[in-house]
């Protein structure tokens, strides 16, 4: 929660593991890091127990690189695959009871604002489609209706991957899974539509197929959530185990799904545009100058 937290007590640095020393000395804390520099600095995420080739891990890794101030960020998660990687990072992680994550984040975000005032402290919720659209659905929607200022990221793998392949609200209609042998009978939930209706200031869909877009979307969502209102990102992060995707075809699948049903969409309110333009120098959202009159 503060840069001093990660630093060594003087004289004790030599007893720390190499990975920790590297992270303090060459990590992204207190610096601006970008996806394009990856591989030349120590990332805050460490080794994790998630499956080889998991697209969700790739998304979480990119998210940690994209955090504007990782030293002033808290992540909140819940049961599901995602927390196995989110908790393996040098960012405080709060484990909400199943479905509680947006309620916990509401309290955290309000408390941090009371305690630290003007200094921005970011709260980022990262949970799966089951935790967010099924079990935590009420808390998620209510946090948006209350205009709680934090970022909600759904890691949408369209299945309960951690428990053996049950259908979730975000599974596509007709999809046959190990624990849904007759195929799902209902449509995929329109969480994007609900986020807009509930008053989110920024709503976007991404696929980890495009790391720079993931970075830009997450940066915008976190910066908008500091002042304007709730923000929501829905990321397609395939489950290569339950959907039987060979690991070297995971990015091909991400590309196919992006072209099919996960096209990049971005919804941003005028207030959020103005906030990004005036406070963080986003040139594309600056008011356009009046067209110069040219004489023919």
């Amino acid at each position, binding site marked *: 929660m503060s840069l001093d937290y990660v630093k060594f007590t003087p004289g004790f640095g030599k007893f720390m593991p190499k990975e920790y020393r590297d992270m303090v000395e060459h990590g992204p804390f207190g610096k601006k890091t970008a996806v394009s520099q*990856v*591989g*030349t600095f120590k990332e805050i*995420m460490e080794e994790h127990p998630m499956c080889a*080739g998991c697209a969700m891990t790739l998304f979480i*890794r990119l998210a940690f690189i994209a955090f504007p101030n990782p030293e002033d960020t808290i992540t909140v998660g819940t049961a599901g695959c995602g927390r196995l990687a989110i908790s393996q990072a040098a960012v405080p992680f709060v484990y909400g009871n199943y479905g509680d994550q947006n309620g916990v984040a509401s309290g955290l975000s309000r408390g941090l604002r009371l305690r630290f005032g003007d200094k921005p402290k970011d709260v980022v919720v990262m949970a799966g489609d089951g935790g967010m659209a099924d079990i935590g659905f009420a808390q998620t929607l209510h946090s948006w209706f209350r205009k709680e200022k934090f970022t909600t990221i759904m890691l949408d793998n369209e299945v309960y991957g951690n428990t053996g392949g049950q259908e979730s609200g975000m599974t596509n209609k007709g999809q046959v899974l190990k624990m849904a042998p007759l195929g799902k009978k209902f449509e995929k939930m329109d969480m994007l539509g609900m986020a807009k209706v509930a008053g989110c200031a920024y709503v976007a869909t991404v696929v980890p197929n495009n790391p720079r877009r993931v970075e830009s979307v997450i940066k915008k969502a976190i910066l908008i959530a500091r002042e304007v209102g709730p923000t929501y990102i829905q990321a397609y992060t395939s489950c290569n185990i339950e959907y039987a995707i060979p690991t070297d075809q995971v*990015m*091909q699948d991400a590309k196919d799904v992006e072209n099919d049903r996960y096209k990049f969409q971005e919804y941003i309110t005028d207030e959020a545009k103005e906030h990004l333009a005036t406070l963080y120098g986003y040139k594309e959202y600056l008011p356009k100058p009046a067209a110069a009159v040219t004489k023919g």
Partner: protein
Amino acid sequence: MYLVANIDQEICAATSCKLCTQYCPEANTIQYDTEAGKDKGLKYGSAYVAVDRCKGCAQCVWVCDNMAKHKAIKMEMIDQIGDQALTPNITYQEKNTKAVLASPWQS
């Protein structure tokens, strides 16, 4: 034995796409050495794999073959690729990383 990614530094150092570093699902696994190719007369640095962290998913192979179209990465058996970069032998610098190659069986 198991497969790990192996990057052909000669092909990699002729380009500077860095795509594999961005698409690896494991953190701190595909690292980049910005000076790797320069003493061999090549233009750019090269990516390399910390083989003790590689889980062998081969996503980087797909990205290198189909997106970058360089075909510089191959999956190889860990006991047949000789000395490789390992996490304890990687040093971080201001804007670069350097690895001293060693046998994966040493530690």
